């Protein structure tokens, strides 16, 4: 039996796995599914058509699946496994746009995830990060406090977004981005080391960054890009693809 506080409100049709814990003053809506090992702490609200995978930890007063202010009704909101949703975090949903969060993410205090945003795995989002509606965040991304990821913008894998930055277009993978308008400030070597990249890979990525983002001009010549697209190193190919995609998609967002 799930351990539900006598003060919690859990709708009859909500589907909770066997060992789910629900704290006092929580509200679990009628179309919610919660996987095994989830801990929902006091005062959290889970509504909409929300699915939580296994081992998620929802901290006090977080709200998951609430209807986005611009939507008429709540929609689907899917969380993978082992995410930590800290205090006062809000994850919105909207009918027709699925909000998807992968596995092992840490959304720190007062972060907001807009309706239709897609967050991949292993991300760490510091306090008051705003991932706006429809934004895409790839694996192993780190953000500092007060970061805003604009609607529809994409943050590439392994990227660090420095505090107060507004990501208004494609932030390339492996990079450190800062400022508003956003600028690429270098390679996120610390994160790459922690994620098990070898010295050679890091050196190759750094060399590619020097060619691609030298100075203020962000668009490297087509020649450089096409050479990188057929590079032996898989990371360089990935970077070049991302930059090309970012260039073509920049104005359309």
């Amino acid at each position, binding site marked *: 039996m799930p351990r539900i*506080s006598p*003060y919690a409100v859990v709708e009859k049709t909500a589907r909770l796995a066997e060992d789910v814990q629900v*704290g*006092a*003053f929580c509200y679990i809506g009628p179309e919610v599914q919660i996987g095994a090992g989830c801990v929902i*702490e*006091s*005062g959290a609200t889970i509504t909409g058509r929300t699915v939580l995978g296994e081992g998620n930890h929802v*901290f*006090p*007063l977080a709200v998951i699946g609430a209807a986005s202010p611009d939507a008429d009704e709540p929609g689907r909101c899917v969380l993978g496994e082992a995410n930590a949703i*800290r*205090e*006062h975090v809000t994850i919105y949903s909207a009918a027709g746009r699925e909000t998807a969060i992968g596995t092992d993410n*840490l959304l*720190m*205090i*007062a972060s907001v995830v807009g309706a239709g945003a897609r967050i991949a795995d292993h991300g760490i989002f*510091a*306090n*008051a990060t705003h991932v706006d509606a429809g934004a895409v965040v790839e694996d192993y991304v780190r953000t*500092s*406090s*007060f970061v805003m990821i604009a609607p529809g913008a994409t943050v590439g894998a392994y990227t660090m977004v420095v*505090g*107060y930055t507004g990501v208004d277009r494609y932030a390339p993978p492996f990079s450190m981005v800062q*400022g*508003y308008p956003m600028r690429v400030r270098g390679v996120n070597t610390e994160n790459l080391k922690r994620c098990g990249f070898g010295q050679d890979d890091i050196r190759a990525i750094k060399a590619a960054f020097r060619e691609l983002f030298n100075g203020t001009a962000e668009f490297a010549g087509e020649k450089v890009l096409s050479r990188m697209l057929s590079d032996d190193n898989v990371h360089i190919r990935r970077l070049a693809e991302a930059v090309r995609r970012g260039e073509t998609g920049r104005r359309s967002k």
Partner: protein
Amino acid sequence: MTALSIVREIDPSARVSPEARIGPSCVVGPHVTIGPHTELVRRVVVSGHTTIGSGNVIGEGCVLGARPQDLKYKGTLTLLVIGHGNRFGREVTVHVGTETGGCVTRIGDRNRLADGAHIAHDCYVDNGCRLGRMVQLAGHIRVHDGAVIEEMTGVQHFVTIGRHARVGPRTPVRRDVPPYTSFYSENYDWDAPPAVRGVHEAGIAAAGLAADEEKELRRALRELFDDEFALQTKIEQLVNMGVEGEVAQLCQFIQRSLRGVYGRHRELYRGKVPPEAYPHLPPELRPAAGRNVP
């Protein structure tokens, strides 16, 4: 009028003073101590080994004593100690300490924390400080007496904010802020690098210094921060001339910051128990003496 029953969840082993007021929908965990005349307004969640003194007002939706966001924290016994006469706004969050950072988060007396302020693990906020809306303090920070941090400012870990200093709104603080100074970005543009840009007049007034001491302090501040690149040499000159009182403390603060890592003196406490933690640690948590002197 009939008295309405108030629904709240207070663990039977929590030590809550009978004179404390716990509002509706509050949750108080098993290891919590709450002193007299403290008011938990509504929807307040207090967990962990948290001690709250007397005469505090904790606003709606505050979460105190939750697990730190530090990934190194593995659930050991750590403390949060809150003093007396503090006023917390809505949705303030304060975390307990971590084992690697000294096990204690401490908030002193008479502080004002506005809505959404966050105080992370192992922070020490002294007395009479004012934190604005959504101020985010990262871990291991010390905020000295009477400091003012204005709204939406983020402070990086291991920073020290000096006595009666002021940090402007929306300022990313990455190094120590010297006492009695006003620290903000040019034109309050957060994208410009923040720096010491003047004297915090209200802070000097609040400190209640003697007239000649105030004059000396103003002169020292003017001299030192006229050209910050020459700070190292100027401070040496000043110390060699012989200083006392507030100016001596100011010089000591700046010298310690210059000795630290990236202008942050408290980086030297990384992985150690800072001296501020000792008075709050129960004997069994105290490390062997002498191990932690930086």
